[in-house]
């Protein structure tokens, strides 16, 4: 067996998995709090990438240096996407909070289509080149053909986001409020949690991590269009279900498993069937372990 090829696929899978994880965290957090599959989540990621593209374009013209552009473009993407996530919740989901779950789901699909077409009209349907915002590290030169600098940045960012979120959920006041709301929303209100605020914060955090994913993957791949959010969103959703929707470690684990599955199958079998493998995997998981790898069975609320 060619070990170098295996290692390359392994790292490729890790890259995919890390990006899926940044997206899947948003899916799983929103689901955990309001039991909504937020189908517009992929679009938030796409909007993050577009924001970064525009900001980076302007700053490049102004002659800023690469690292400064990367930082400012990422911050702009995070802020802008968070604003979209926050607004979408207020307009499209909050009025439906007491409606049947299907209504909010349909509303989410509506938001998704709206945002896609909005970007299509405001920008273009063509693929746009995305500048490589991530500097090439000198020390990576000898192994450049195996792992690129952008991949290292993706791994690091995902790891930092995961640790930060874990600390937030476990130890902060808002984190406790989020856990309580996820377990029993009405009871959380009865101990004084402002549930509207918790839901808004959840959407903001989810959108922010998705935007980071969007900027990083666009920078890594080098092109974007209005449609990139859709397929990435579906894949990240598969990853979240795979890991057990509602569980944050599950989302990360599911993302990595999915990333590696895709990478190894396309590497060793055929790259034509990349998406097929992902969805076959989803079908198998749903048949044999419907609650996901780390998911817990729904306990009935008394």
């Amino acid at each position: 067996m060619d070990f170098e090829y295996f290692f390359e696929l392994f790292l490729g899978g890790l890259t995919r998995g890390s990006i899926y994880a940044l997206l899947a965290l948003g899916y799983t957090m929103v689901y955990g709090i309001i039991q909504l599959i937020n189908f517009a989540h992929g679009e938030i990621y796409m909007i993050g990438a577009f924001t970064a593209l525009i900001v980076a374009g302007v700053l490049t013209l102004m002659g800023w240096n690469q690292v400064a552009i990367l930082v400012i473009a990422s911050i702009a993407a995070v802020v802008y996407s968070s604003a979209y996530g926050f607004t979408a919740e207020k307009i499209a989901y909050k009025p439906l909070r007491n409606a049947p779950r299907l209504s909010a789901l349909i509303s989410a699909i509506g938001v998704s289509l709206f945002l896609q077409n909005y970007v299509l009209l405001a920008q273009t349907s063509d693929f746009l080149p995305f500048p490589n915002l991530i500097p090439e590290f000198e020390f990576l030169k000898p192994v450049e053909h195996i792992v690129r600098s952008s991949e290292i940045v993706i791994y690091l960012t995902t790891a930092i986001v995961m640790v930060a979120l874990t600390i937030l959920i476990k130890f902060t006041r808002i984190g406790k409020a989020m856990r309580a709301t996820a377990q029993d929303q009405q009871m959380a209100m009865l101990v004084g949690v402002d549930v509207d605020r918790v839901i808004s914060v959840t959407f903001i955090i989810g959108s922010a991590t998705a935007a980071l994913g969007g900027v990083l993957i666009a920078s890594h791949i080098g092109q974007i269009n209005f449609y990139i959010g859709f397929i990435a969103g579906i894949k990240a959703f598969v990853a979240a279900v795979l890991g057990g929707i509602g569980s944050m470690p599950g989302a990360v684990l599911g993302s990595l498993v999915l990333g590696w599955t895709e990478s190894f199958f396309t590497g060793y079998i055929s790259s034509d069937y990349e998406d097929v493998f992902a969805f076959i995997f989803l079908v198998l998981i749903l048949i044999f372990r419907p609650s996901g790898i780390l998911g817990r069975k729904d306990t009935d609320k008394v």
Partner: protein
Amino acid sequence: MLELKNVQTFYGNIQALKGISLQIAEGEIVTLIGANGAGKTTTLMSVCGIVPPRAGEIYFEGQPIHHMPANKIVSLGICQVPEGRRIFPYLTVLENLDMGAFLRNDKAEIKRDLDYVFSLFPILAERRNQAGGTLSGGEQQMLAISRALMARPRLLLLDEPSLGLAPLVVKQIFEIIRKVNSENKTTIFLVEQNANLALKVAHRGYVMENGKITMTDTAANLMANEEVRKAYLGI
């Protein structure tokens, strides 16, 4: 302290409260008794802002609260121990108690109250690192009451605290309710199906039927009332 004036609450088109009026004075234990579906739980949920009334007024210490969001009402000092206990199942006992004190910032006082509830229910101290969902029904009820006490409520609303519990545990819990009322001067509004038990611990009572208050008197008089005895005490 608490006053409801002609409160009407709906679930969709169904009217659950058809004009409820009642008063609770500071330091009292007042009970609301009635059959299943009479609207007792809805009354508490309306007071707490979970199911806000469509018409009528609710005042807490003279301040209107019927348009306030639930978290603001809690911050005024109204706390509910809801029916079915509603423990956060995946939080530990300690985290559940901590959630009770969610709106407080006084660390030292919170610690003191924690010691106080552990002195009321020593079993909770033993189980402090166990997930709430793994406790027995009685222990969960103790935890639910303790969680509410951690907010230092001025008015404590209790919904069916005896439901589904062994008689010995019920006795223990009602002793604690009386103790909290006499020692901390916490006003208590107690909803019960077990009218016998409720009237023994309460000062005054209201009887509810089909979304309306049908009778009110001191607990002793209600206990002696012929209709109440027939309908609710099974005598």
